[in-house]
């Protein structure tokens, strides 16, 4: 039985490289950007507290073994915060790790077969499986072995670490889609056909600032095709994903830029290509779910009433006879290191296959023999905090929020905590509402999964007079189920201050009306949304700052609310950051040369000239898939890919030779050529499209050497609506770009543009209208505007 994924052979080398890079970073030989580009795909994120890092550990199929949990907790004790964190992607995170401790942590994890590789950045992220796979009454078959085997395969492949953006895969065992297959980049839902195992395959969905449901790719694919299909979709994404615009990079944006037909055609093309290579199917080993035969005395329970309540709240019968799953609620996914060690040690006798992580950030303890439930109860009661609270309280899901996330707007965990206090103090039958899924995100990115909630919130900035205050959009009524999936819809908004009251009111109303409806879903889809609107209206009025300052402070904050410190996201450290850094190096060095005076030595000048050649040669090499290990390798690569291809003038060959020779004196007489080389690199960069092809006016197209298809030209054409993000583009260039896009589409076709508030929205639509085009829709989305134009 292969319960967890297998680490790739080259992991040691990669860890060594990371170690080397950290060493050089500390000596300032490596820039923070360069460091970031290596660090983030390793699942290591910088936290808001400077020079501390979070390590996100991959747990394929939501599985962690007790011995692994114990090791994580021990490492956390030694090197990180005094708690660990379970994510909504079914992983475990360690927080506040110092730079020096990153590598020891990663090496420690490796001893128990774990790695954070791919935990962040533009990578294949943790592969999810529904948390009750293998034990659910309704499942077609156990999908976790597929998630585990696919993880093993994906993390062996180098292109998994260098995608245009993150790439998420999930498995569900039944059409109830508890693995969220219908909102992933690639989603598999177990299905039987003619007695054979297989999957219904969905692609191109996801949650975020722009959510999108996945689209059905195959109604049935035999089980041995899981790898080939994933590989095909990944390759299409690798080739066609928009690498330049982080906000439009996920696979799901291809629906708009290429059109559904073209995307499916491309996937099929790659799928055929993969099939021709005939890769071995995934090595699937069934995972047993059996209650262990323990030689353990059964403990007696003192408080039977409390025990029964606990059973009602947290114990679920598995499809295996007399075998149970225990929900272990972790408030906001947190568990102390000590608790984790104790839990791991307690669980070891129950076998290896006893822990899963649920996407609501709780632990699930499975394969517990019925007779030992009292033992589990007694252990948890003695070990865990806030034991046996109504499930709805800890089921509430929140993203990390603005305290640790550089993108956050609101402090979602604090709002959630405040809600918990309000609920605990309210006289409500909370257990009657335990089906309700309440999710809170601090910003429009869907890390808190508000789009998938019964009642969801996502943070925003609201204004009253000249003051800003924290607030949340209120959404409701998501359904995630094969063929029926839909995201939660906006029903209103609420000041952060009143969020807990809104939740309390809603639960009160639900509990009182519940008996009239078939299910909580039935209620929310019909009356629930109306009730919520009414509740939102109740909290509409925000008092002035002078009347009640509390509204202008986020939960748990001592300073008035501000978004000034919001940083740029860490998530998308990518290739373009690196390229731009080297371009900047070229410019800076050239400026230094200009500013040299007679007092400066000639050696200084020749060194600077050499640096220009060095950076020029390095800048674009990445786009050809080359990461040179030595300077000579770099010059050789540049010669092969840029000089021999005619992209750069052959005369530059001499410059490289001099630079490589170590004696830079001869560069002095070639100063002009050195500058021309710098200019040429900038020129090439400016004329490079997202597929790294150079589109030089008046010249034949030079295709990229990397495996790139004719992407960009097609990408711009589409039968459906094209969306262009002109946020951050000032007047009148936003109008110029709009006209450029309009020129590409046919009459009556639609173009959606995003514009900043202020002058852009005041001017551009009017100018567009003046030219005879039709403004179909103009609406404010968060802090920007979406304008839909129909071409004349």
């Amino acid at each position, binding site marked *: 039985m292969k319960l967890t994924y297998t680490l790739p052979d080259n992991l040691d080398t990669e860890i060594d490289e990371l170690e080397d890079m950290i060493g050089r970073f500390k000596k300032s030989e490596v820039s923070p950007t360069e460091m970031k580009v290596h660090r983030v795909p390793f699942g290591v994120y910088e936290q808001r507290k400077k020079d501390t890092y979070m390590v996100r550990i991959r747990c394929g199929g939501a599985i962690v073994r007790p011995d692994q949990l114990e090791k994580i907790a021990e490492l956390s004790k030694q090197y990180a915060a005094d708690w660990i964190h379970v994510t909504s992607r079914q992983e475990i995170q360690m927080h506040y790790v110092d730079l020096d401790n990153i590598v020891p942590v990663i090496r420690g994890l490796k001893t128990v077969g774990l790695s954070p590789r791919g935990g962040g950045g533009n990578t294949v992220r943790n592969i999810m499986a529904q948390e009750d796979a293998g034990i659910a009454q309704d499942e077609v078959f156990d999908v976790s072995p597929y998630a585990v085997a696919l993880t093993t395969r994906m993390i062996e492949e180098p292109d998994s670490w260098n995608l245009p953006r993150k790439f998420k895969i999930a498995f569900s065992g039944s059409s109830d889609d508890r693995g969220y297959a219908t909102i992933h980049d690639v989603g598999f839902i177990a299905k039987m056909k003619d007695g054979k195992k297989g999957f219904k395959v969905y692609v191109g969905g996801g949650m975020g600032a722009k959510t999108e449901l996945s689209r059905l790719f195959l109604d049935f694919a035999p089980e041995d095709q899981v790898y080939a299909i994933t590989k095909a979709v990944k390759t299409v994404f690798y080739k066609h994903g928009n690498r330049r615009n982080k906000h439009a990079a996920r696979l799901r944006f291809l629906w708009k830029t290429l059109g559904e037909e073209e995307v499916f055609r491309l996937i099929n093309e790659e799928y055929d290509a993969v099939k021709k290579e005939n890769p071995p199917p995934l090595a699937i080993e069934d995972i047993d779910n059996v209650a262990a035969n323990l030689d353990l005395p059964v403990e007696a329970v003192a408080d039977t009433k409390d025990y029964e309540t606990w059973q009602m709240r947290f114990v679920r019968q598995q499809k295996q006879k007399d075998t149970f799953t225990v929900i272990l609620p972790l408030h906001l996914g947190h568990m102390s290191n000590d608790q984790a060690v104790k839990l791991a040690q307690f669980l070891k006798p129950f076998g290896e296959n006893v822990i899963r992580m649920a996407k609501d950030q709780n632990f699930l303890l499975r394969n517990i023999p019925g007779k030992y439930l009292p033992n589990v109860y007694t252990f948890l009661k003695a070990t865990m905090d806030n034991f046996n609270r109504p499930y709805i309280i800890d089921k509430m899901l929140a993203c990390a929020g603005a305290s640790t996330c550089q993108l956050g707007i609101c402090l979602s965990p604090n709002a959630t905590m405040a809600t918990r206090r309000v609920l605990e103090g309210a006289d409500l039958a909370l257990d009657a509402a335990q089906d309700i899924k309440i999710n809170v995100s601090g910003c429009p990115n869907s890390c808190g999964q508000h789009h998938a909630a019964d009642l969801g919130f996502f943070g925003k900035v609201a204004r009253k007079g000249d003051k800003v205050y924290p607030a949340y959009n209120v959404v409701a009524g998501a359904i995630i189920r094969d063929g029926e999936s839909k995201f939660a819809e906006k029903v209103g908004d609420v000041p952060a201050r009143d969020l807990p009251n809104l939740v309390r009111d809603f639960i009160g109303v639900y509990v009182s009306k519940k008996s009239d409806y078939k299910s909580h879903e039935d209620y929310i889809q019909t009356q629930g949304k109306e009730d919520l609107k009414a509740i939102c209206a109740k909290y509409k009025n925000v008092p002035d700052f002078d009347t009640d300052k509390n509204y202008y402070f986020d939960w748990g904050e001592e300073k008035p609310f501000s978004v000034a410190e919001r940083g740029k996201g860490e998530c998308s450290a990518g290739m373009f950051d690196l390229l731009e850094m080297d371009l900047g190096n070229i410019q800076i060095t050239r400026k230094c040369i200009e500013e040299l005076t007679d007092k400066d030595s000639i050696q200084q000048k020749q060194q600077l000239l050499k640096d220009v050649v060095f950076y020029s040669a390095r800048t674009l090499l990445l786009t050809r898939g080359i990461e040179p290990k030595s300077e000579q390798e770099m010059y050789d690569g540049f010669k092969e890919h840029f000089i021999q291809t005619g992209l750069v003038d052959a005369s530059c060959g001499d410059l490289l030779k001099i630079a490589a020779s170590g004696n830079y004196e001869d560069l002095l007489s070639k100063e002009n050529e050195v500058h021309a080389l710098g200019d040429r690199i900038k020129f090439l960069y*400016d004329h490079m499209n997202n597929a790294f092809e150079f*589109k030089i006016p*008046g010249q034949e197209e030079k295709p990229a050497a990397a495996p790139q298809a004719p992407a960009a030209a097609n990408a711009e054409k589409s039968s459906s609506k094209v969306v262009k993000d002109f946020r951050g583009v000032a007047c009148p*260039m936003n109008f110029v770009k709009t006209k*450029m896009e309009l*020129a590409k589409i046919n009459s009556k076709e639609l173009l959606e543009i995003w514009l900043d508030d202020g002058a852009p929205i005041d001017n551009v639509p009017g100018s567009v209208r003046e030219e005879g085009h039709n403004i179909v829709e103009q609406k404010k989305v968060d802090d920007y505007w979406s304008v839909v134009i129909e071409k004349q």
Partner: protein
Amino acid sequence: MDLTEEQLERYSRHIILQDVSVEGQEKIMNGKVLIIGTGGLGAPAALYLAAAGVGTLGLVDGDVVDLSNLQRQVIHFTPDVGKPKVFSAQEKIAQINPDVKVITHNKRVFADNIADIIKDYDFVLDGTDNFAAKFLINDACVLEKKPFSHGGILRFDGQTMTYVPGEACYRCVFNSPPPKGAVPTCSQAGVLGAIAGMLGTMQAAEVLKYLVGKGDLLTNRLLIFNALRMDFRTVKVKKNPDCPVCGNNPTITTLVDEEQPVCDLKR
């Protein structure tokens, strides 16, 4: 054709114009324009057409830059004195707009070479300073069915008209060059430098309108201005059925050189 980020910005003030837009700018960028004479008229015209992003600019001139040229021929600078005008102009164009491809013809036009020179261009701009060349350009363009812009300046006066095949040509209006000595040359009569700029840029505007395909060209109209009075007017002209080159029974069917150019004081 996809404009690059840089081009979008460079040409943004064109693109914003409803009558130009992206499509018009692309036409400009695909345009091939021949400027005959890189002197008073050709210099400003070449500068503006280069700045506008005309894809290919052909330059014809056999002269070298003279110190006396610099008062009005603004594409040439003091250090260029003695340099062939086409090369001097080419260097400036490269600096204004490296997107523009420049083809130089370091020679004068004559009956035996003009047809070959103009054949690859979409539009010809006459920036010459003598009647022989002006009539030769007219005849060649009529015979080759090339649109062109005529321009002439003297003292404080300027005139221009635009020919497109089928409409009135220069000979429809002026049958043949004036007798030698009847009209003084620039070198004899003088010219206000700025009016070269005024007329050359009008011609450039006509070229751009033609390339973009918008507006009313100066066809069948002769624009005349006097800068002393600052008086502008247009005179209607008609296609002449008896025109020796484009009339019903043309007598000019092959190109011949008219009498030697008159603006030859320096040689």
